[in-house]
């Protein structure tokens, strides 16, 4: 259909918005589901894809702990490899909607304690074995086994059992309602592997087969010719490596030694673009912030935290340090990238040194110490700016600089004032639960609110969009006034690539469109 192509082109170029696009598709007699997928592929329409070629992808970190075992993944390079080699039960699209992947479809009972998954037929692992229910059960049981090293073990704390109903049906029983379970299943750690797999190289069903893997050096992958779906798989081969030094990584792209680099800083953008390379900047909920521990001094003093909120010159941080590739934070994690759950009614916290001075005087403190490590692109500059602005109103902020290695174990959640960064989660509820929920393992400001717990639970069950939005607004207000988190900015996810490579999606959940680029991108000329 020529019209569809035209509209996709118009959407990509920004001539029509999402709603107009979908309306146009409706007028053409196309169902909503199909229209959604057309929308997804519209961003990848710059040129018609061609088969062939290979790319070298350079991540930001690697080492002897690199792993092909999906449940142990903790870094961009691990997630990228997982998406290249494996598939999950459920996948998340760019618009944050959920779709079956290895599960053809799924259903849930009324109180969200029982899920039934229909497993797709005709899917085979890289070693030729067909995918069946027992593979899914084995893969998922690895997260809940005693002493399981899974990095997302806590996501599945409420699982009673995964049960095989028949060869292609799996039933999941939970001890407590969990409407977010499908979201959890989209995580890269929750990929499906072959039952009793010892050798991960051939244990996946994904678009590319692993040819070579050396932890801390590189891996190479070639096209899986028996892939179960048609997503393009344009590239013949993919090589995945990492260059730890940020300048060396940038130079490698500029010199053409690699094709894609992750985690560039906003300061590097001008250089990259003037050298004829492309930058991928995707607005995201990813943020950098300051944690004030509420269970200890000085964070337990509400006036102190309020003073520190009001001294953040947020506009300037986004303009100067992020060069516009970010959004102003409002001291809660849910920004516009979360769509309908973002509370746009909530007034923006202003930069107000006078009020800040008032609150800081009232707090009784004249000096505090903040632990700073470069965990997020602009966090050091943000803290320096904050220090300078505090000095103007007679408050002494001492910055204790520490390195990033060891930071999460030794400083974060331990020192009374520290800095933090959080990746975006697929839903506002998932993000809020993980950081502020009553059973959250990562309640990094040690703020406990009964009301928050109730709202988190009720909003999951609420089906009326208006009421649900109201609940999310209340949660965002609670976090931004009562908790100990200060969020001056959200950063776009920034990557850079050779302009010959096209077809990236703009999923904001990870680097290069949520780390799942392998099967979609192609190389021209």
């Amino acid at each position: 259909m020529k019209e569809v192509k035209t509209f996709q082109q118009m959407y990509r170029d920004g001539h029509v918005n999402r709603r107009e696009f979908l309306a146009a598709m409706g007028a053409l007699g196309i169902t909503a589901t199909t229209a959604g997928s057309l929308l997804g592929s519209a961003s990848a329409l710059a040129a018609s894809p061609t088969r062939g070629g290979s790319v070298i992808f350079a991540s930001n970190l690697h080492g002897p702990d690199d792993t092909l075992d999906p449940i142990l993944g903790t870094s961009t390079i691990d997630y990228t490899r997982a998406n290249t080699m494996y598939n999950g039960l459920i996948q998340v699209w760019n618009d944050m909607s959920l779709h079956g992947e290895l599960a053809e479809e799924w259903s849930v009972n009324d109180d969200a304690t029982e899920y039934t998954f229909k497993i797709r037929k005709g899917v085979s692992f890289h070693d030729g074995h067909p995918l069946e229910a027992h593979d899914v059960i084995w893969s998922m049981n690895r997260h809940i086994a005693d002493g399981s090293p899974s990095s997302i073990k806590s996501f599945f704390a409420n699982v009673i059992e995964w049960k095989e109903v028949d060869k292609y049906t799996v039933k999941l029983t939970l001890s407590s309602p969990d409407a977010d379970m499908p979201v959890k299943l989209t995580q890269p750690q929750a990929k499906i592997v072959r039952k009793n797999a010892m050798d991960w190289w051939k244990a996946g069903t994904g678009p590319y087969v692993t040819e070579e893997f050396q932890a801390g050096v590189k891996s190479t992958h070639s096209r899986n010719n028996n892939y179960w779906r048609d997503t393009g798989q344009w590239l013949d081969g993919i090589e995945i490596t990492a260059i730890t030094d940020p300048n060396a990584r940038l130079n490698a792209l500029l010199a053409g030694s690699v094709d894609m680099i992750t985690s560039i800083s906003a300061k590097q953008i001008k250089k990259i673009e003037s050298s004829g390379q492309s930058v991928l900047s995707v607005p995201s909920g990813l943020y950098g912030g300051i944690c004030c521990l509420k269970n200890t001094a000085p964070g337990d003093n509400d006036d102190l935290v309020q003073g520190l909120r009001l001294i953040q010159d947020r506009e300037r941080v986004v303009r100067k340090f992020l060069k516009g590739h970010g959004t102003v934070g409002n001291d809660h994690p849910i920004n516009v990238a979360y769509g309908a759950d973002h509370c746009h009614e909530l007034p923006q916290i202003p930069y107000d040194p006078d009020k800040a001075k008032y609150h800081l005087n009232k707090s009784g403190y004249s000096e505090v110490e903040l632990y700073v490590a470069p965990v997020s692109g602009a966090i050091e500059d943000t803290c320096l700016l904050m220090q300078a602005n505090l000095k103007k109103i007679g408050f002494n902020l001492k910055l204790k600089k520490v390195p990033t290695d060891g930071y999460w174990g030794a400083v974060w959640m331990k020192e009374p004032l520290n800095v933090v960064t959080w990746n975006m989660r697929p839903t506002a509820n998932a993000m809020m639960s993980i950081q502020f929920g009553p059973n959250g393992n990562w309640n990094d400001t040690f703020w406990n609110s009964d009301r928050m717990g109730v709202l988190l639970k009720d909003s999951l069950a609420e089906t009326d969009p208006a009421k649900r939005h109201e609940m999310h607004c209340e949660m965002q207000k609670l976090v931004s006034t009562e908790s100990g988190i200060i969020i001056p900015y959200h950063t776009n996810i920034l990557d850079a690539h050779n302009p010959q490579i096209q077809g990236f999606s703009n999923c904001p959940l990870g680097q290069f469109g949520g780390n799942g680029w392998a099967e979609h991108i192609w190389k021209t000329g």
Partner: protein
Amino acid sequence: MLWRALLGRLGISLVTLWIVSVLIFIGTNLLPGDVAQIILGQMATPESTAALRAKLGLDKPPIQQYLVWLQNVAMGDLGISKAGLGAGLGTPIVEMLGPRVFNTARLTLLVAVVAVPVSLFLGLIAAMHPGTRLDRSITFATLNLISVPDFLVATALVLVFAVGLGWLPSIVYLRGDETGWVLIKTLAMPMLTLVILVSSQIIRMTRATVLNVMSSPYIEMAILKGVPRKRIILRHALFNAVGPIVNVIALNLAWLVGGVVVVEQIFSYPGLAKLMIEAVLMRDMPLVQACAMIFCTTYIVLIFIADMATILSNPRLRHPK
């Protein structure tokens, strides 16, 4: 005499290695966080960290961990990388070291093969014509290069040859089957960096040593006898200067082994030094120890060669009173 010196050296070397291993163990324990916390990173929960610690044997007291390690090493077992074990089945450290040692050895040997003849040649040229424009320009260039840190030289070379001219790759991305010209081109950048840094020192020292010998009475005698200058330097002076020069070369190669740390990191070269940095970042004690032991042994051997060269070339040291 020589055997006694050798045996004595061997004993001291073993003690040095042991002291280094203790220092490294204390050092890695002083650093914040352990391998379990670092693998899990921001994803760590008290429960998952404890599970991983138990799996890796980190729940035992540090001294016990060290003794277990020492016992295994004494029996020739370097153990399994803790980071690798946390990330799956784990690879024996010996297997991890193999390709890394090969890469680092290949790089340093290539550097030595290029740097030593070039710098001896330039050093002698400068010594043969002291005070001339040639000598001054060599001295000026080497002094400048000695003063510049290695990471700056490396970055400047990348900016000129990789980003600017596009002649050479900015990182070393090994496919594993490179030979001959392709290999040289792939390794060119780190080689060039290290050659520049190592040569400057050797050139300076060669020049100084030869000039020192040139001012001694027997050379004066030779000059008075009318021996041509070239012959004086190549025949009389150089042989007496060999001891100190070999000493300088060995010391510089020992420095080279340390110098690769920065260079491997900047060029993302999968060598031993980069592995050691990753191991430190992961707090992977057995892996750090293994790398450190190799570096330390290389250092000790090179210093030993330097000392022996001095003793053998100087009869007075060969027969101490």
